[in-house]
């Protein structure tokens, strides 16, 4: 390569327009990379919807595409929550389904026939590309370095904290909500900086979209007023703030109230009160500001400020009174558990039973954010250094995002964008300091010294700025190389985490054979397919709520409870049926017209996510409603152990869940050798017997077991004696009963 071509290449990076083109190319590549890194699951397994909630979203999308928007809006779903049904159209966030429906229709209009499933599977990766761009835009508002924006886009694109919820197939609300979150913040900063009504209105529009998409919109609803409040306290009230905030609040609240599921919540619940309060407070401040500009009296001014503070305190008190009087709904249980992590466990077991509501373990931060978690504080510190209005936003967001991420695992998702932005600011600042090839010349130095001498005469020494810097080529290249290595490690870590931890569909399990080849365990789909093909179309399936959406989506059968845990009593009913004796459970199942019961059993394979491990939650939730009939204590041995072997308590052994899990399990082993591989427990020699249920199906690895609920006995006996009679056992003679005769009354 000649020196000339080198020169041309070096010049390419200098022109302004070439830089613009480069930025666009780089952004496009980043978006491409973020999409590509999310396709592991499609390549490894297949184009399949993952986990639990996505199955409902998928089913709802199919309904939307098949029946049109208005039918979807008024959808009464009679195949869930049997026999209550669910007013689905009014109890979901329609943004996700409508987005994929629109994409599907658009593609068809372009004569690209696509299966709606593929749209759903690939929606999350596609939106992650957009999220990267939104992160670029947001970061560019914070700093003048364009490199920071690009870095932020890259981080956002591949940070595992975000990938965890947006791999291909993870068709959940978060798939589009994180993009909307970041983009709404970008628009908010833009509106605030320019004091522009247009940007404020755009912000409200995207806020409305966010409300339509995810319950996490409350994060924006609380963060924006908080930002405004902090700015006011810092004495930075301005007409820019007034215009942007009021525009956003008025239009955004109206937009959010159009969603049936949200409805009047923005004026009724405590979660939305900060936004309303700040809105009112800003009106007051605007008024006072006007008065202040009209009447230039210093004392009057302080009086006015006191007045404003007084009004603020008084309205706060009014809010408290209104809440306690019941006019405004108090904070919901999920919000309480944000402040007290032990709250849910005691008061609302249904919330605590969800694994993603657990407090975050510390290693998770490193796992999900790697390098970024170290540079994140640096970025926040750099924001303090400049501290314009937008930097205050990053600081406020950082503080609250960190707190919430520490309280609840799933909120790591809302922390990730600010970590990416702050981390990008920090790393770009470092790189910008070290990558500058220019060393100060002698003249510069002299000029600087001269300036120093001048300065020392006039002012304090500390106020002067000596020319200090790292000019050695070695130190520069060492630092830059170090950073590059870190960034490379970050990319490798992200790829590794994505590939190993977040790309499993969880519907299909993968394991390794001894020779290293992959072995697919497909019990879930096997069982759901069995249900689809062998049961009546309206056969009601009772299972723990975790599997409700999957049964609805894959087996297309009505379920009693599902992952939309809106009715605690109904879930507790199922919990009671599972944790009680057969004689108690059978009438419950008859009343709810249950045809089949499905349990997940991991004892043969050593699969940890099975129902026996979740069983205590069923007991707890049932105990919450029927404390006299179900008692958690009775499932523990006197020494306080939760056992399934021979020393399990009688309550445990007689519970329907235990019986269904271990029914016929002994027959797999030589006598007395039955071992539960999950809990490493040796089971009693005689297995449990069932009389009101009969085994209908057990999957290949025994992960799913399905039981059919027997009809009432034809001649009117109870099931236990009917089963005994079938086995040929002699009936005990009851004619020699002591005591008075029992007479029949006709």
């Amino acid at each position: 390569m000649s020196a000339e071509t080198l020169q041309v290449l070096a010049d390419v990076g200098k022109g302004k327009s070439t830089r613009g083109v480069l930025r666009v190319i780089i952004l496009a590549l980043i978006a491409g990379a973020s999409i590509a890194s999310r396709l592991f699951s499609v390549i490894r397994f297949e184009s399949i919807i993952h986990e639990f909630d996505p199955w409902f979203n998928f089913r709802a999308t199919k309904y939307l595409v098949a029946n049109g928007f208005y039918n979807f809006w008024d959808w009464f779903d009679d195949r869930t929550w049997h026999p209550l049904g669910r007013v689905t159209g009014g109890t979901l966030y329609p943004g996700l389904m409508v987005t994929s429906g629109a994409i599907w229709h658009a593609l068809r209009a372009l004569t690209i026939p696509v299966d709606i499933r593929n749209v759903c599977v690939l929606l999350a990766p596609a939106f992650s590309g957009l999220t990267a761009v939104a992160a670029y835009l947001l970061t560019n508002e914070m700093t003048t370095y364009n490199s920071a924006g690009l870095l932020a886009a890259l981080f956002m694109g591949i940070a595992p904290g975000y990938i965890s919820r947006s791999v291909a197939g993870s068709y959940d609300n978060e798939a589009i909500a994180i993009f909307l979150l970041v983009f709404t913040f970008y628009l908010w900063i833009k509106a605030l900086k320019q004091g522009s009504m247009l940007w404020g209105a755009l912000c409200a529009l995207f806020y409305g979209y966010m409300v339509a998409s995810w319950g996490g919109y409350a994060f924006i609803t609380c963060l924006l007023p908080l930002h405004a409040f902090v700015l006011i306290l810092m004495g930075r009230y301005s007409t820019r703030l007034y215009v942007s905030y009021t525009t956003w609040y008025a239009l955004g609240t109206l937009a959010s109230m159009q969603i049936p599921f949200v409805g009047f919540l923005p004026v009724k619940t405590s979660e939305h009160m900060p936004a309303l309060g700040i809105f009112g407070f800003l009106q007051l401040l605007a008024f006072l500001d006007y008065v202040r500009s009209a009447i230039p009296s210093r004392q009057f001014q302080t009086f006015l400020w006191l007045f404003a503070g007084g009004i603020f305190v008084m309205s706060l008190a009014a809010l408290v009174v209104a809440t306690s009087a019941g006019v405004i709904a108090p904070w919901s249980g999920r919000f309480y558990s944000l402040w007290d992590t032990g709250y849910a466990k005691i008061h609302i077991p249904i919330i605590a039973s969800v694994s993603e509501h657990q407090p975050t373990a510390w290693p998770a931060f490193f796992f999900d954010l790697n390098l970024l978690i170290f540079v994140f504080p640096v970025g926040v510190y750099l924001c303090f250094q400049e501290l314009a209005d937008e930097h205050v936003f990053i600081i406020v967001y950082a503080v609250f995002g960190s707190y919430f991420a520490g309280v609840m695992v799933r909120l790591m998702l809302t922390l990730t964008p600010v970590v990416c932005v702050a981390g990008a600011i920090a790393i770009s600042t470092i790189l910008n300091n070290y990558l500058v090839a220019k060393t100060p010349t002698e003249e510069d130095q002299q000029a600087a010294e001269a300036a120093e001498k001048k300065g020392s005469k006039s002012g304090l020494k500390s106020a002067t700025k000596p020319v200090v810097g790292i000019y050695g080529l070695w130190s520069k290249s060492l630092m830059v190389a170090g950073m590059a290595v870190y960034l490379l490690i970050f990319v490798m870590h992200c790829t590794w985490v994505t590939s190993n931890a977040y790309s499993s569909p969880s519907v299909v399990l993968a394991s390794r054979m001894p020779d290293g080849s992959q072995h697919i365990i497909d019990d879930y789909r096997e069982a759901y397919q069995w249900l689809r093909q062998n049961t009546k179309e309206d056969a009601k399936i009772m299972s723990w709520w975790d599997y409700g959406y999957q049964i609805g989506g894959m087996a297309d059968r009505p379920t009693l409870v599902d992952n939309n845990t809106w009715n605690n009593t109904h879930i507790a009913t199922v919990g009671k049926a599972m944790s009680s004796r057969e004689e108690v459970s059978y009438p419950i199942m008859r009343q709810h017209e249950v045809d089949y019961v499905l349990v997940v059993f991991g004892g043969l394979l050593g699969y940890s996510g099975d129902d026996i491990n979740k069983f205590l939650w069923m007991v707890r939730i049932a105990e919450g409603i029927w404390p006299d009939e179900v008692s958690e204590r009775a499932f523990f041995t006197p020494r306080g152990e939760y056992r399934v072997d021979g020393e399990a308590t009688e309550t445990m052994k007689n519970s329907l869940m235990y019986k269904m899990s271990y029914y016929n399990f002994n027959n797999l082993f030589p006598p007395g050798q039955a071992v539960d591989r999950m809990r490493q427990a040796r089971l009693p020699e005689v297995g449990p017997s069932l009389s009101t249920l009969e085994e209908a199906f057990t999957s290949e690895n025994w992960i799913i077991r399905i039981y059919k609920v027997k009809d009432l006995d034809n001649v009117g006996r109870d099931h236990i004696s009917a089963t005994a009679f079938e086995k040929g056992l002699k009936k005990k003679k009851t004619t020699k009963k002591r005591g008075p005769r029992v007479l029949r009354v006709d």
Partner: protein
Amino acid sequence: MLRSTSPLLSLFAFLLVWGAALVSAVSTTGNRLLAVFDDVGEKENYSKFLGDLEGRGFQISYETPKSESLALFHLGERAYDHVIFFPTKTKGLGPNLTPQILVNFLNANGNILHTLSSTTTTPNTLISLLAELDITLPTERTGLVVDHFSYDTLSAAETHDVLALPPPVPVRNDISPLFSADAPAGQLLAFPHGVGAVLGPREQLTPILRAPKTAYSYNPKEQSEVLEANELFAAGQQLSLVTAFQAINSARFVLLGSAEMLQDKWFLAEVAAPGGKSVKTFNREFAKRVSAWAFQELGVLRVNWIEHHLNEVSAVNESNPHIYRVKNDVTYTISLSEYAYDKWTSFSLPANDVLQLEFSMLSPFHRLPLSLDKAHSSPEASAYTASFKLPDQHGIFNFKVNYKRPFFTNIEEKNTVSVRHMAHDEWPRSFVISGAWPWIAGIGATVSGWVVFVALWMYSAPTDKKVGSKKTN
């Protein structure tokens, strides 16, 4: 209108029924009858009874329990539709007639008429079958019912073991009097050498004929001299002489305490109650009715069709829709027929009884009486109907008719419908609601005020600069 069956299937069923009707008038479930005797020669004693059955179209096969070819099931299907057990002396009935097989026979819609006699002990097999049905016989597997006040003075003046009873009246006044209807006054039923049974509280059991209040049961072999009070098996109306059992699938089982009452001699005999004059027995007619009930010729109900529809003016008013809306007005109609020996007739409710419709989700939201709908009734079928407003609760509901009465086929019909919530465009518009008018006026005022303000702002000329500077000064 008919419940959902494929057209081909219903055509096939129709041909089958039509073909069966051609052969002879017969039971609704089939005409293959198995009679089990200890010794087939005994059937001569019952020639009139069996002849009556053959006359009604039954094809009777005679077998003994010892016969190796005897099998109630062939390749998993019932080989017979009905079975009569006459008293047998054997201790058990052998491997072809275990209690399990007999219960399975009932479960497969087979019917059993079982007769007892005080002169033979009942086989263990049947005792265990009876135990499953909650019927108890005396511990020695036999007993004798005597009554010193209503015995037959002609044949048992000394022993008092032939009861002379009036035709049975139903135990409750809302039960159809199937077995005594149209009986001439003063008729007597001879119940010779019979065994009484004690019934448990199970609701499937109903006594057809109860012993008089003065009757009691004892064991002539062991208790011929003294009957101690605490060894008494049962007495009075607790003793059921003829018992009906109807399983959930409407398979019928009848326990007839005296086989002898079916014999020719008691069909022809004359009996006289103490102090009464002698009359011809009612036994032949009673035997006909009891066997007809047991073999599904009497008291058989059929649901012809069920129909429900929206009772409102609407563009689409289809039959049996799967979904309704809360607070819809709906009409439900059910058509029922009753079978009497050889033909389907319209079903009329017994006096003092009502047919009820439940509209239920977990528990009933409505429980309404169904009234006769003459417009949809015919001599072969009667329709019952009810109209009501659906509750203001969405969910998956059942129209449920649960009509289970003694001596009638169990009717449990469940038609599931979904009741949806109001759609977004089904509410009244805001301008129809008078309470909304102030708010609408408020919106109007705000909008027009804003327009006026903007107009003023736009068209008012900017103030003069001089005036402006004066002001600031």
